[in-house]
């Protein structure tokens, strides 16, 4: 299978310095957050890569970097073999790139314009990219898109407030699919939904992937959902990937201590009564990340080397993991 998306050493730094006057008067230094720091992965055509991690680990920043909502500070994103950083220099290339990748956002209440009819919301990308000019054809196409996500053709005359959360998220999906993209970036698409509605949306996403050969980057903090939808899983901690593996492998044999901790921490409906051993500590402040391996203050296997030297991603029997303890064979 061919690789559709490849990311090499991607990084994004945000300047969160105090205002200039404060820096001068109070002698405060400039401050930077390394939201994403040296990420490398690739996604093959028709497959789903899921990124998981807790809030503040940089998952959403990766999503925004991939679709071009943020400029990377360092590194490259290749789409279908072409460097998107180079493509962006030409407006025409950028447009065609935008057509081929789309994004689904977390909150279906905030991502749809409340003053627009569904027809305009779903039809906008088609019109914007000059794919369909004729109104009658546009209506047909929008109707078809709405039906493909389980809504009715007549729904195009309604406004977003007339729909429930799950239906709104389907409208977002229909809009994202309008330009027949190959790659969809889904940033927590079901986190704002109730479980029964989440099941509807996840089923639709899987059906569409099968029918249209879509490639997904699926971002979520819910490991059970990730296990359900993904082929490969990347685990992020403080802006870095700590483990990247095939889904079955990752859930059967998690290597990195953070992955193990996450898997232990999820309350599961089939484990009623079983006691979990909650890991102590919290995610550190990204402004002052710990030295060495960022996870070492919470890690039960940390030693002196972990506190000093940042572990590199190494491949071990098909799994990429960044951990000294695993690489040294200590765990």
């Amino acid at each position, binding site marked *: 299978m061919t690789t559709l998306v490849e990311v090499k050493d991607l990084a994004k730094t945000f300047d969160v310095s105090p205002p200039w006057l404060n820096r001068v008067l109070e002698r405060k230094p400039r401050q930077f957050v390394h939201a994403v720091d040296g990420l490398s992965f690739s996604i093959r055509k028709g497959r789903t890569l899921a990124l998981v991690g807790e809030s503040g680990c940089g998952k959403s920043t990766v999503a925004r970097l991939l679709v071009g909502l943020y400029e990377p500070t360092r590194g490259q994103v290749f789409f279908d073999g072409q460097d998107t950083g180079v493509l962006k220099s030409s407006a025409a290339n950028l447009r065609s790139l935008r057509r081929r990748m789309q994004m689904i956002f977390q909150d279906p209440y905030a991502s749809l314009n409340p003053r627009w009819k569904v027809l305009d919301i779903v039809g906008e990308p088609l019109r914007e990219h000059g794919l369909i000019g004729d109104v009658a054809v546009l209506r047909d196409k929008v109707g078809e898109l709405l039906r493909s996500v389980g809504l009715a053709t007549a729904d195009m005359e309604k406004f977003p407030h007339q729909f429930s959360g799950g*239906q709104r998220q389907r409208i977002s999906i229909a809009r994202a699919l309008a330009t027949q993209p190959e790659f969809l970036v889904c940033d927590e698409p079901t986190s704002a939904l*109730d479980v029964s509605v989440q099941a509807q949306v996840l089923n639709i996403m899987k059906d569409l992937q099968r029918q249209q050969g879509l490639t997904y980057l699926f971002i979520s903090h819910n490991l059970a959902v990730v296990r359900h939808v993904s082929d490969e899983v990347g685990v992020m901690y403080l802006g870095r990937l700590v483990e990247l593996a095939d889904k079955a492998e990752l859930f059967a044999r998690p290597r990195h201590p953070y992955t193990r901790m996450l898997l232990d921490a*999820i*309350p599961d409906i*089939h*484990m009623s009564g079983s006691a979990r051993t909650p890991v102590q500590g919290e995610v550190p402040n990204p402004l002052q990340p710990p030295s060495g391996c960022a996870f070492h203050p919470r890690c039960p296997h940390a030693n002196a080397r972990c506190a000093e030297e940042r572990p590199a991603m190494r491949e071990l029997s098909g799994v990429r993991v960044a951990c000294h303890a695993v690489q040294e064979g200590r765990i």
Partner: protein
Amino acid sequence: MTTPLLEVKKLRVEFPTRRGTLLALDDISFDIAPGEILGVVGESGAGKSLTGAAIIGLLEPPGRIAAGEILLAGQRIDNLPYEQMRAIRGRRIGAIFQDPLTSLNPLYTIGRQLTETILTHLPVSADEARSRAIRLLQETGIPAAEQRLDQYPHQFSGGMRQRVVIALALAAEPQLIVADEPTTALDVSIQAQIIALLKRLCKQHGAAVMLVTHDMGVIAETCDRVAVMYAGRIGEIGPVHDVIHKPAHPYTVGLMGSIPAMDDTRERLLQIDGAMPRLNAIPSGCAFNPRCTKVMERCRNERPELLDAGPTRAACWLVGAGEVR
């Protein structure tokens, strides 16, 4: 059998509006024994939080209790005057809410908020209240409690704030704790810590807990019994294990099937088509009938009561007809 600590009998909560009265809770009955943890689950708008609010006497006007009774240790509390209810709230019923930031006052130190609560409800001196506050913070696992006491809520992280809120709820040693989505705003690794903490402290203090959440995983791990709510009614209630593994109500079956679990290999999740009805359009008969795959003629006209369905009790005519189990 011991007398239940909390009894809710045929509780009905209404919201009078200009366009007619909305029935938000309809015929809710359950009880909680001392030291028991009862989970209340359901999707948004099912009325879980409202049940909690009715019990602690904090219904937002124009919402009001239209019928039914709430008894705490045999004493009616739903019709008490405001001042008397205020004395019970905090003293005998503690509350924990979803967002730890909005349940703490940002302008007061943690210590002041804790000692204020203790002094309001317990006959102790100021010094004693302070040492009690320190002990509470230590119990909830906050390191360097003595120094932290003089800090403000913004100096605490989300998980730490929720610990403070739990300490506040436990400050006057209440008999009952109403916890409304206590872990929803937290990350999974912190969530596990908070759940374990809540469980341990309630056991130590012998408090009964009503845990409101939409997360079945949290329920499975924490509760003794669970009530599943749908459109302002209880659809099924029973021991946690039985509700999860042998649900009788078709809604519970659908709800359990729609949750992706860590050990399942299904290609597709079970889905319940449609969405929960709005309060102004609750169908006649069983509220779940338009979405139910096993709907019968009777379901459209007659509302089912909670009926014995083996280990659980379910409000479904299939149970009455003996078709389930």
